[in-house]
């Protein structure tokens, strides 16, 4: 047996690696995925536990040097709450109380990967008392004293998984309907295209809001999560199906489609094995550019309060706190914007990666043989 020079996959990988921004995007996405997959473990607290004594606490400083300026194991000072002259709660460090950061501490119980019950967290102060001054809030806390860092990580799982899941469903629909429509043409084509037109003439955002509004408020978070995915994907497949239909209309007339037919390939085989791979470049671009759109769609929905609901969380839902008292929140609690930063980074990373993948999957590109 001879060795293969380079497989198509290797070629794509090589060309992808050459694209610096795209690789950076890919690395960021992997990091975000790992962070959110192990969210409950990495987060020091449960996403729903309220520490009311510490509402709107700013991000906790981690110290590496003790009062005498000697290098020491990282620690935090106790948080002390007092009122400022205007009567608002402010927080200071009490340098008399030192809480070293412990690794693999026992904390709020959770299930790792939604399966294994445990209460070990990567780091924390080990203080189980909700009112203990020894707390660690890396991103500060929200209005009821929930740790924003923990919420950001756990909410990230929702934000990052909605995109790919909704996309998987809508791409499947688009490939099946677009493929049938373009390949067979005729009556089916007509029917499917009219269906897409009806679908596309629904006003998207109002429809989403209306649908979300009629959902009973007591719906379990998992169900409303799935419903959002269904709604986003059912509304989203039309455009891609249209584009795919156009591609298939061209492809089915190509000589190699005829050749496949002449050798006796079934329609399904021609569609999926001979024609579909030609649309790969388009599909990948449409997918990677579609994911940020879906992340943003979920974020907008949740931001408006119709998507993921408290206490479940997502990046968009975390920004929802700005809807009540925008100016005050922004001025006095700027750390509440951190989840928004994560949205921007994730969307940018997906866009960079999509761009790089588009270049890498182009079978006609000569560079990077």
């Amino acid at each position, binding site marked *: 047996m001879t060795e293969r020079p380079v497989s*198509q996959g290797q070629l794509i990988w090589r060309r992808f690696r050459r694209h610096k921004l795209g690789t950076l995007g890919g690395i960021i996405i992997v990091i975000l995925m790992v962070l959110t997959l192990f969210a409950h473990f990495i987060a020091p607290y449960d996403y729903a536990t309220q520490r009311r004594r510490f509402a709107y606490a700013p991000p906790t400083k981690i110290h590496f040097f003790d009062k005498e300026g000697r290098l020491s194991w990282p620690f935090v000072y106790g948080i002390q709450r007092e009122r400022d002259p205007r009567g608002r709660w402010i927080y200071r460090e009490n340098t008399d109380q030192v809480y070293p950061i412990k690794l693999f501490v026992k904390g709020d119980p959770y299930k790792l990967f939604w399966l294994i019950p445990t209460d070990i967290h990567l780091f924390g102060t080990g203080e189980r008392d909700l009112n203990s001054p020894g707390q660690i809030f890396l991103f500060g806390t929200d209005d009821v004293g929930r740790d924003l860092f923990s919420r950001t990580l756990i909410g990230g799982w929702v934000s990052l998984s909605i995109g790919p899941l909704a996309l998987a469903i809508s791409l499947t629909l688009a490939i099946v309907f677009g493929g049938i429509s373009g390949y067979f043409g005729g009556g089916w084509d007509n029917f499917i295209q009219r269906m897409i037109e009806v679908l596309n003439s629904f006003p998207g955002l109002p429809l989403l809001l209306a649908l979300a509004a009629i959902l009973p408020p007591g719906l379990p978070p998992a169900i409303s999560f799935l419903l959002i995915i269904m709604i986003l994907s059912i509304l989203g497949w039309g455009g891609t199906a249209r584009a795919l239909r156009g591609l298939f209309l061209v492809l089915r007339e190509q000589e190699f489609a005829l050749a496949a037919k002449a*050798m006796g390939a079934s329609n399904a085989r021609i569609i999926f094995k001979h024609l579909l791979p030609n649309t790969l470049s388009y599909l990948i671009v449409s997918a990677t550019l579609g994911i940020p759109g879906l992340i943003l769609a979920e974020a907008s929905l949740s931001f408006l309060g119709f998507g993921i609901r408290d206490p479940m969380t997502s990046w968009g839902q975390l920004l929802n706190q700005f809807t009540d008292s925008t100016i005050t929140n922004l001025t006095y609690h700027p750390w509440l914007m951190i989840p928004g930063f994560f949205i921007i980074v994730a969307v940018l990373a997906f866009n960079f990666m999509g761009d790089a993948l588009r270049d890498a999957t182009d079978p*006609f590109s000569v560079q990077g043989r």
Partner: protein
Amino acid sequence: MQDQILVSVKDLHTHFELRRGVFGRAGIVRAVDGVSFELRHGEAIAVVGESGCGKSTLARTILGLYRPTKGQVLFEGRPLDGDLRWYRAQIGYVQQDPYGALPPFMDVHRILTEPLVINNFQGDRERRIREVLEEVKLTPVEDFLYKFPHQLSGGQQQRLVIARAMILRPKFIVADEPVSMLDASVRVEILELLRALQRSHDLTVIYITHDLSTVRYFAERIFVMYAGKLIEKAPVQQLLKDPKHPYTQALLAAIPDPDPANAKTFKKVPPGEPPSLVNPPSGCRFHPRCPAFIAGLCDKETPPEFEPSPGHFVECWLYR
């Protein structure tokens, strides 16, 4: 084997409907309009004709890619209708544009595996792939096995197309202008390859071309096609020496002759344009361009097939 009929085509018509809008019917394209012939085992024939005369449609109808409107194709006496899977392994298709005929994202190995998988080839697939690559002289095989079509030259691509057509050991090859997209230098090689394969495997071949000068390499008989009909059928030498139909005569006269004395002169070509296949002329379809036009007959009645000398058939009133 030589005298056994492999393929017979009986009064074949392939028409296409021209549609306008959803329900409107703009007309019918009579791309193949009454074609009959028989091919013996191991025989190579050439179909020549102008662009748009229905050659490719004839090829695709014989391949079973288009359903005939009327008439039928019989392969070893069995009509082509319904499920054609039995027929696919018996027939190979060599296309005009080799680059377009090869799926761009499959490598050579994958391209050659497809027909084996589709037709459930029993036996050592890897060995068969190597065999067929050697047969079309894409050697050393290792250098080509994992290349993609765009990494091959035009001639190599066409060899690959031929390999794909040959891999199931078919009895019958339809080659639709196999060299018209290739460089002149490669043409002869490809034609010689096809000829060699035809001889060594006792293949029946339909070679479709618009170029009479390449026919000599190849065929035993020539069919001349004009506006959806085979107007003349004859053995090669006979047709080249003694063309009967006025159209064939004009075609032969138009073959370029590389004589410097001709540099300043133009060949005489039949006046007018190839007829529309939507509204073909009445009677004989060549009559508006024909120098020997018989008024009152050629424009009224479609000529039947005459046989002025044995084995030489012509659809022309001159030989009534």
